């Protein structure tokens, strides 16, 4: 089986996100980037499939973005991926999910992948569209927000348990397919030291605009159907008031405050 894993380099969850002065973007200075949390489940699942099949199955990690994203490919290689592809061109900058999915589709089409795994969403922009859009562009099946994969005996189809509002949905999917991964699917492994040392020696394949065979007008900001017009931070949480005293007094004061100060009653 040939498996592709989409990985994304995103700000660490502990990073404090600040907007640029013109509010048109995020301040990248001093931001620490890591592999998108949900993509770790995707990499782990791909490695588990390879370990189960033991038939020469390959796992290729793919990412799109500037030079800094290579580190996330190295992480995927260090976890155990066989190959890595870095899709990068200045023309790709500012593209939306749909445009980026089209680029990735061009990259993976000639590879003849049986299965593409990705995180259910990037924890940076939370669009949760790339996997879906990629399946559309490739004309393959898709199953999103997977928490369990059950394979058929011939490994040509699988049942995907999807987490939906209030419960799970189980869908039968034929390969080739794109599946997005949710927390609970597995326990991602750490990148081991031998893995990291081996990853250092693996070559990362580069694909640029010419390589994907698209026109510069079809990619990046100019090729996107949506455009970000601005960002605004959440308004600060108002100060918390703690009422003290006897319960009877507190309740009286609470009702008064809800009525007169907050005006919610």
């Amino acid at each position, binding site marked *: 089986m040939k498996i592709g894993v989409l990985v994304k380099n995103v700000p660490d969850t502990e990073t404090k996100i600040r907007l640029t002065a013109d509010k048109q973007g995020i301040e990248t200075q001093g931001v620490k980037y*890591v592999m998108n949390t949900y993509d770790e489940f995707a990499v782990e699942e791909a490695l588990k499939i390879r370990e189960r099949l033991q038939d020469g199955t390959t796992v290729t990690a793919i990412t799109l973005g500037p030079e800094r994203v*290579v*580190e996330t490919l*190295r*992480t995927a290689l*260090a976890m155990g991926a066989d190959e890595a592809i870095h899709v990068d061109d200045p023309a790709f900058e500012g593209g939306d999910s749909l445009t980026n999915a089209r680029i990735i589709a061009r990259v993976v089409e000639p590879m003849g992948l049986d299965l593409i795994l990705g995180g259910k969403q990037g924890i940076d922009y939370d669009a949760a569209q790339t996997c879906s859009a990629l399946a559309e562009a490739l004309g393959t099946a898709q199953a999103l927000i997977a928490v369990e994969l059950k394979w058929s005996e011939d490994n040509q189809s699988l049942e995907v348990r999807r987490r939906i509002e209030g419960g799970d949905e189980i869908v039968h999917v034929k390969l080739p397919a794109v599946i997005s991964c949710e927390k609970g699917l597995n326990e991602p492994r*750490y*990148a*081991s*030291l*031998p*893995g*990291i*040392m081996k*990853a*250092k020696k693996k070559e990362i394949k580069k694909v640029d605009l010419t390589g994907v065979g698209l026109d510069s007008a079809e990619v990046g900001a100019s090729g996107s159907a949506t455009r970000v017009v601005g960002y605004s931070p959440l308004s600060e949480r108002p100060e918390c008031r703690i009422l003290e005293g006897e319960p009877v007094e507190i309740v009286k004061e609470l009702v008064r405050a809800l009525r007169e100060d907050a005006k919610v009653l």
Partner: protein
Amino acid sequence: MNKFAMSGRRIAHIRGEKMSAYFDLSEEERLIQQTARDFADSEVAPMAAENDANGQFPRGLVEKLAKLGFMGMLIPEQYGGSNAGNFALVLALEEINRACASTGVTMSVHNSLASSPIVGFANEETKKKYLPKMAKGELLGAYALSEASAGSDAASLQARAVKDGNEYVLNGTKSWITSGAEADLFVVMLRTDPSERAKGISAFAVERDTNGFSVGKKENKLGLRASSTVQLIFEDARVPAENMLGSEGEGFKIAMWTLDGGRIGIGTQAVGIAQACLDASVSYAKEREQFGKLIGEFQAIQWKIADMAMNIEAARLMIYRAARLRDRKEPHTKEAAMAKLFASEMANRAAREAVQIYGGAGYLKDSSVERYFRDVRITEIYEGTSEIHRIVISRFLLKN
């Protein structure tokens, strides 16, 4: 000022941009640091307080560390190690020590003091016999130099090894042996020639189940309570001659070369504990209120935190440089001594200030800083006391 000093300064200036090579992390070094950090936060830290309270050796953690390759960082790939080197080891050790100094010292001793001299000085057969198992964590390593009456004056050690055919017969007692209660393989310095001092010492790799070799009771310590410290007792214990590291009389040199690496590890331990003190202090300063405001808004607390951060940064860079020098096989005895001395003293100050910032809460077993305060004290004592390091450093400056 003489002209040599001037030219030295000029060279340093020209080399300015190259200096960053000591401190910048490569892609794989960042990955190693990240793996160690994630592992420390999710696997080591949650068990640290309990292991400390129960004096429980973190056996399970050591197995997990080995599985990730952290027990074979100085072992070449052909013997099953990752050969990541001293700098990578320092990056990993800081993270593990930040979470638990007992786990940290176990990892440091195994890598720097036990595997490293075997890699450096054992014959091929011995390397093949022990190193793959050490890399896998199946053999835990320890190092035995000190004796009851040979601490700082290590060259005065008395435990004997006497040649008898193809074997050496060992007699005597070693003291203060870290990881001794659990270790499977010991690098032991013994006197083979009583007519010499330092030159009469030889180094051996000794297996735990050697007849005539036994381990004494665990010492009851102030800190590092999840790491064992024991006596080793040799009573006509027989060790094959091929288990000697280097040749007869080279043991003290091997021991000192090994300690140069170990000291970088203990300096790193100090940095890790100090970082934990700083992290705890910052978070407490941002939540504890007195006089109607956060204590972090008082300059008295701000200054303590600023000093801690500054000293940690300085110590870390000294450690980085010493580790890089060791990896490049350049002289580093002075640099390792300076780094260990500076790091251990600054870490003890950091722990004292962390307890001060916590106030009464920091004096309680419930607080992490109480453990840091106890654990950090030993860094000024083992692998060379502060006094010994000042002697080592001044020797470089005053000799000739």
